[in-house]
């Protein structure tokens, strides 16, 4: 039996759309519409999708930065709504930390690196100044920065180094789960590999679980144990990373992979066979009936527009929501 750290069950987040003087609700933006997933201890789950797919909303829900419309989150088997306010503060929030996409805006430019990394410790623990000081130096070492950096300001560091500082801050409280929202997409190509390798090393060393939000499939394949492909607020394919990348089943996953795989030009301009989707993602305010992808799907049949296909098991841990599979 797998050691499940966090589980999301049928999560939904609808944002009201209001109109007029009285702010009457005239509709709902279905940002996340009934998704379920599990994150195992020491493993990485990646949520993949294009903008508007609902991946960041999901991450915010896990971080308790958004109140869910419905659904429940279980942490170590215990439902989050059973936690009292003070329990959340001591037993949940410190153990779930995050690293944001942009290391230029995720740190206070007026604080020294020492204070940035120490802040979670100051807020959440009753450690002495001396203990905090030595912990900060230890964290800097964990992320591959020299301790001389502690008294500098964020602007004195490069993007890659800042992202290391952000990782050190996230690790300060010894969390079990770190939410990584596009952790490398703001960095330069040659720096990305450094940060990805660092994250993998830290995961192994501290038995960390990661929830990665990403749009770059190659990054995801390198980082993850399991993957959920999202489209318009729903998971269309979910499973163990290797199985999913070796044998993608959902037409959307296939198109995404085809769009990101490295295809070399063939001799003399032979056309590369690539799946190119027509149109764009519909508005989550008014999602199409049935399968949400059918408006852009090349394999769609009339039945696709009738009922929402359930996410069903197709062997092993591999789930797909498509009636054509």
């Amino acid at each position: 039996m797998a050691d499940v750290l966090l589980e999301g069950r049928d999560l939904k987040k609808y944002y009201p759309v209001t109109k007029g003087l009285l702010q009457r609700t005239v509709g709902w933006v279905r940002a996340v519409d009934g998704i379920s997933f599990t994150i195992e201890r020491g493993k990485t789950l990646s949520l993949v999708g294009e903008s508007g797919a609902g991946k960041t909303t999901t991450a915010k829900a896990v971080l308790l930065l958004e109140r869910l419309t419905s659904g429940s989150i279980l942490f170590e088997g215990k439902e989050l709504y059973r936690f009292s306010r003070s329990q959340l503060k001591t037993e949940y929030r410190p153990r779930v930390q995050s690293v944001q996409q942009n290391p230029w805006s995720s740190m206070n430019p007026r604080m020294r690196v020492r204070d940035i990394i120490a802040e979670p410790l100051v807020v959440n623990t009753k450690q002495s100044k001396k203990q905090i000081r030595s912990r900060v130096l230890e964290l800097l070492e964990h992320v591959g920065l020299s301790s001389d950096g502690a008294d500098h300001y964020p602007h004195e560091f490069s993007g890659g180094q800042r992202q290391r500082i952000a990782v050190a801050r996230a690790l300060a409280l010894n969390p079990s789960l770190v939410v990584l929202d596009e952790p490398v997409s703001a960095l330069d190509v040659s720096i990305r590999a450094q940060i990805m390798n660092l994250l993998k090393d830290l995961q192994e060393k501290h038995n960390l679980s990661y929830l990665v939000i990403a749009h770059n499939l190659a990054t995801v394949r390198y980082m993850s144990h399991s993957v959920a492909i999202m489209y318009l607020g729903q998971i269309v394919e979910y499973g163990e990373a290797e199985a999913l990348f070796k044998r993608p089943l959902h037409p959307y996953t296939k198109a995404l992979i085809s769009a990101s795989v490295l295809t070399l030009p063939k001799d003399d301009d032979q056309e590369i066979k690539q799946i190119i989707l027509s149109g764009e993602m519909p508005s989550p305010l008014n999602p199409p009936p049935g399968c949400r992808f059918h408006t852009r799907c090349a394999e769609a049949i009339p039945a696709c527009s009738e009922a929402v296909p359930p996410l069903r098991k197709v062997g092993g841990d591999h789930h797909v929501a498509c009636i054509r599979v």
Partner: protein
Amino acid sequence: MSKIILQVEDLHTSFFTRAGEVKAVDGVSFYVREGETFGLAGESGCGKSVTALSILRLLPEPAGQIIGGKIILDGTNLLELDKKEMRAYRGKMISMILQDPMTSLNPVFTIGNQIAESVRLHQGLRDEKAEEEVVSALRLLNIPSPETILGEYPFQMSGGMRQRVVGAIAMSCYPRLLIADEPTTALDATIQAQYMALFKDVQKKTNVAIIYITHDFGVIAQMCHRVAVMYAGKIMETATTRELFEAPKHPYTSALINSVPRLDRKDERLYSIEGQPPSLMNLPPGCRFAPRCPIAKAVCREQEPPEVKISSGHSVSCWRVK
């Protein structure tokens, strides 16, 4: 072989700041043929965008100055033109697409108006004639129902559609050379694939030469016929796309290719280049990649390597390449 439309020779562009001279482009040479897509690849700060702005002569003056070299477009050295002559080239002979479609369109003018601007200026067309040209530019970029879109504003369109409009503005006068600076970076993966396919099609129809600036090797593989890899203001290696990926010669090129995770295989551990690019104000002596290079030897740290041609269309600047 089609004819060479743009030849850049030993281009030097510097920014003069209070702290000193920043050598953003330090001796860059390349050429682009008609109907060809030439990629300029590299990390941020390597000088790829400054090269593009130098060709268009749109550097922020007086800080940015072209201090040497030649930029020859179809027989004319652009650096010898006066401001007025250059203005007639921009938009007509050379045009550019920028990264972010939201900031390159004016939010208070309609789409039709913004495309018509260059048609009016460069082709002297008015009213219905201008509108006809605008509609045909929108058709070229495969924009559905162009007649109705003329009266719309940028905020009414999606990111992908906006970037097509930017493409339509760039192509409206049928330029000989199009410079695309990270045109798909702000777009989603499936929209990016649409856009690239569209541009290949546009190129086939108009035979325009494209300089494609990007840091994404996946995009290079799909779009470009030939590529130059830049590092700290210099071209390290120039090759056909196929050769660059299959037999990269410069250690920086192969390190970059190996540090990008691949979708078609599982990498156990990525190769990572240690350290960071040098400051352009204070370049290391010798090869500028030497401080980060795993195979650097003494000569690399002392003398700058010359550009060596190893086959037709493949040249590299590295002492270790025989």
